[in-house]
């Protein structure tokens, strides 16, 4: 009798333990995919396997307005992700447990959507879900994320939009998350189910005196020195990318990528951070001139680890890396990547 009661109770207890905490979800290593064409290379797939990536945040499209012949168009999706290789998509998705479609909304699009917020919430939600359905991702979708660098003046519009999107997603049993930037930690909490605190792009890249706009401990510390937590479950996203910031006479020109910094005919450096351009260099149809300066930026593992110590971790906190690109990921050893994914003890 006792044994049979136990046999009856145990599964119930197990079930209760699973269902006792609504809002909790499996914690796991995660990564963003931010390229416009979905094509995951063999080494990137190996990365997903090696580091046991559970969740893939997939940028589906941006929402922006355009200026055409002096007329501002309606907010619309731009730069939609292209899935040209169905097999590659299938193979990649098989490696992860979950896919989180992500949409980036520009501020000017947000302002334009205010005119009919409900309509655009519906359009955005439908489009995301349609894209997932078309590419047979629906089974992997438990959450959708919106990304927008909202400000005090756009907070109301954004929060209203989020509420409407969340309502529509909840009808499908899907949660809504939003990105949170450091300066927004002090603002009101957005009406979403969880957030991702973006621990990158923390400095002003256009300023010539900025040392590292991707991640600088000195930029982050003021926001987090007294940080005890947020009124929303948060995951943390850390950068694993690099770029160059190009200046002419200390005036910002552009972000540049793909420069061959080791080419001593083109670049001269003493510290591996500031590169003096020696002669005309063409980079994606931009011309860097002699005596221009490129500030090469990358987040070091040491800095990320130092920043992690400022952040509270719970059992539910996931670490997300931005972003999946073998050109950047090869800058980190396996051990370093594992370190990045290691969560400090929950506190």
């Amino acid at each position: 009798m006792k044994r049979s009661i136990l046999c009856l109770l145990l599964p119930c207890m197990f079930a209760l333990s699973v269902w006792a905490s609504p809002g909790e979800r499996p914690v796991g290593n995660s990564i963003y995919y931010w390229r416009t064409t979905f094509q995951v290379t063999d080494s990137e797939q190996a990365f997903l396997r090696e580091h046991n990536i559970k969740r893939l945040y997939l940028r589906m499209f941006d929402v922006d307005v355009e200026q055409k012949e002096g007329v501002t168009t309606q907010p619309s999706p731009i730069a939609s992700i292209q899935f040209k290789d169905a097999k590659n998509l299938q193979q990649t998705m098989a490696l992860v447990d979950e896919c989180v479609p992500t949409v980036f909304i520009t501020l000017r699009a947000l302002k334009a959507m205010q005119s009919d917020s409900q309509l655009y919430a519906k359009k955005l939600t439908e489009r995301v879900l349609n894209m997932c359905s078309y590419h047979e991702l629906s089974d992997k979708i438990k959450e959708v994320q919106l990304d927008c660098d909202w400000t005090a003046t756009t907070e109301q519009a954004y929060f209203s939009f989020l509420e409407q999107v969340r309502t529509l997603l909840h009808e499908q049993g899907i949660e809504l998350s939003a990105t949170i930037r450091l300066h927004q930690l002090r603002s009101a909490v957005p009406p979403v189910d969880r957030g991702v605190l973006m621990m990158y792009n923390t400095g002003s890249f256009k300023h010539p005196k900025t040392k590292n706009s991707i991640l600088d401990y000195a930029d982050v510390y003021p926001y987090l020195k007294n940080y005890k937590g947020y009124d929303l479950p948060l995951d943390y996203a850390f950068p694993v990318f690099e770029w160059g910031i190009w200046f002419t006479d200390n005036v910002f020109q552009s972000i540049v990528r793909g420069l061959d910094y080791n080419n001593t005919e083109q670049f001269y450096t003493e510290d591996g951070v500031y590169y003096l351009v020696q002669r005309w260099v063409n980079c994606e149809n931009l011309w860097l001139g002699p005596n221009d300066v490129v500030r090469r930026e990358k987040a070091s593992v040491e800095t990320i680890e130092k920043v992690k110590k400022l952040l509270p971790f719970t059992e539910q906190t996931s670490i997300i890396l931005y972003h999946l690109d073998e050109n950047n990921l090869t800058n980190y050893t396996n051990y370093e990547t594992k370190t990045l994914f290691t969560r400090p003890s929950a506190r």
Partner: protein
Amino acid sequence: MKQKLCLLVLALVSWQCGWACFIFSDLPENYKYYNVAEYRENPVFPRPSYTHDNLVGWQKYTGQDIPLDQIAKVVYKFSITDMQQCKQDPSIKMCQQNAFAKYIFTEDNGYAARVLLLAKQIEQARSVSNDPWYYPTKKGENAYGYLLSDVRAMMQEVKGSEQEKFLTERLQLQHIRVLFAQWDYEACLYLWENDIEHWDETSLMRRLIKDYIAGAYAHTGDMETAYRYFWEQGNYNEMAELARTRGEGFVDYVRHMYDLNPDCAELVAPALQNELLELDQSYPFKRPDSVVYEQYNSLVQYILQTHRSKDMSMWYYTSAYLIDKGGDPQTAAKHIYAAATYKTSPMMQNNIRMMRIYLDAKTKEYTPKYLDQLLEDLKWMEEQVIADTARVKKNMRYAGELEWNIRHNRSCNWYDKQYICYPYLMLRKTVLGEVVPRLYEAGETTLSLALTNYADNMLFTLVSPEARHVFYSDFFMAMDTIPAASVERYIKSVLNPQTELEKFLVKKSYVDKDYLYDIVGTLYIRERNYAKAVEVLSKVNPSYQKRLNTAYNLRKDPFAPEQAKNLPEKPNSKLNFANQMHRLQVMMENSSIDPNRRADAMLDYAVGMRQSYTTVWALTQYGQGYPCFTAVYREWMTDERRGKIEDEYDQLVEQALSLYTDDEAIAAAYLRYKNNYTVVTKYPNTSAAKYVRGHCDTYADYFPIKDKLKREE
């Protein structure tokens, strides 16, 4: 960096010196001068319109003289709901009041109404699928649903009917539209090649379908046919878009256009102009975008070599422009001369001539023969400026707007109808950018000044004399930075021009005598030639200097030490100063005068000389800092010169002090220059020392550091 410093200095002192902004905020070498078409910000080609033909087609279908606007209302304005309501009940007002609606819903066999309804349904489906937010939920799904099968069914149904051809053609158009929207390009091409292509070429539907077929060829990789079809349809925008989506540049697009039709010059000119102007970026963002220049150059040379265009003038002009930008004006000149041999539009003829004039100035030797040619060229250019000004005045929205634009620094965007400039820009580019520097280098300062004056002031003389910027101009800078004697020679030529060129130039130049003589006099003061300064400044109207906004500075006493005191306002401060300095100079050099008096004179001279460059700078200059966007830029007050002035001052003071033989005299001199400490310590028994002890009761008066005759600024 130097330019930025100049701008900062300019900004700081401009309110003091009254520098006005100048119409040209850029240097002649940076002027954008490629001009082959009337400027259009967005040179979109007009799309061919088939609306009228379509309406006439429907009118013929009815066999009745139904007004086209009524047909248009049904064909283009009736919604799907309107059509369905009329179909359900043709007796409703909307249907009965429109003759075409009445016909198709009551008199016709019903096919026309169904075809139009189908077309509207397909159009609606297109708007859904064209909605940027639209995305299908599964493969094979699309917004058209059963419309494709409806179209095909209807095509079968109308077979054998009286208007089979008319209706079938329209249905086939809808058929192609749906297939195209579903990305079934192969099906589109199959229908085209096996049926539609063989229709009568004048068929309206065939023309409409051909647009889609061009797109279908592009999507299936047959770019040549795609380009050709778009070309034949007159869809040049689509051609440009096709090039863009293939990652081709505009230069490739022009190549396609030329290969399809060598006489495309006029068609591509506006867009080509925008592209080359875009490349031609001015300071400080110059980039040697040589790859793109090389591509355009290569294309243009290809066109010149194949020589198939009827408008070779435009291509030779373009070649001349590109080769000149590439640094080979000699070859560029050959090409512009070639351009002039071909027939072309009056506008291109003028632009070719202007470029020819500019390239001649760059490449020819300045012989008397060339100067005669230059005179004729300038006369012609002036006529263009006059004509351009009259044209622009007509576009002004209110009286005085043109003058306002000129006065308020509206930069010379000649490609905007509101602003004049292209002929004037080319005149400045030629004269100030090429002729003046070469003449100056050759020592021909009089002619270079005459040309500078003309180029600078001609427009103001024509349009708005009161908007002239006399002290922020190339002409002023040119005068301000050469020897006074050279400027004086120029004035003589202005008052009595000898050659035809001089006579021509002086007519539209600024020749105010007070202005000119005041400048020469100031230059002579700067050169310390006070005798000549007196001679020249005597010709200036006494009240002239009061009109300048530097007049306040001239009220300071140049002979007072330290903070020069303000003098009562007097006219002709410069002349007075020159007189005084000349007198002092004479005294200094006269050894028969008492040495103490000579020493006094020398001290006064030194102080006056120094202060005429510093505290009372208006005696030797018209502002501090330099307007940097003038074609003429020659800095005269260098650090070296400043240093020499200070050295000379020191030497004169030392020399003067060494001349004194009488303690009373030297003590009085020290006292005059407030060297109280030296007076009481070195010459305690003089009346100067007695005065100091009796009157100077401030502790600071006795500081040795204040006691130098040489004051720090």
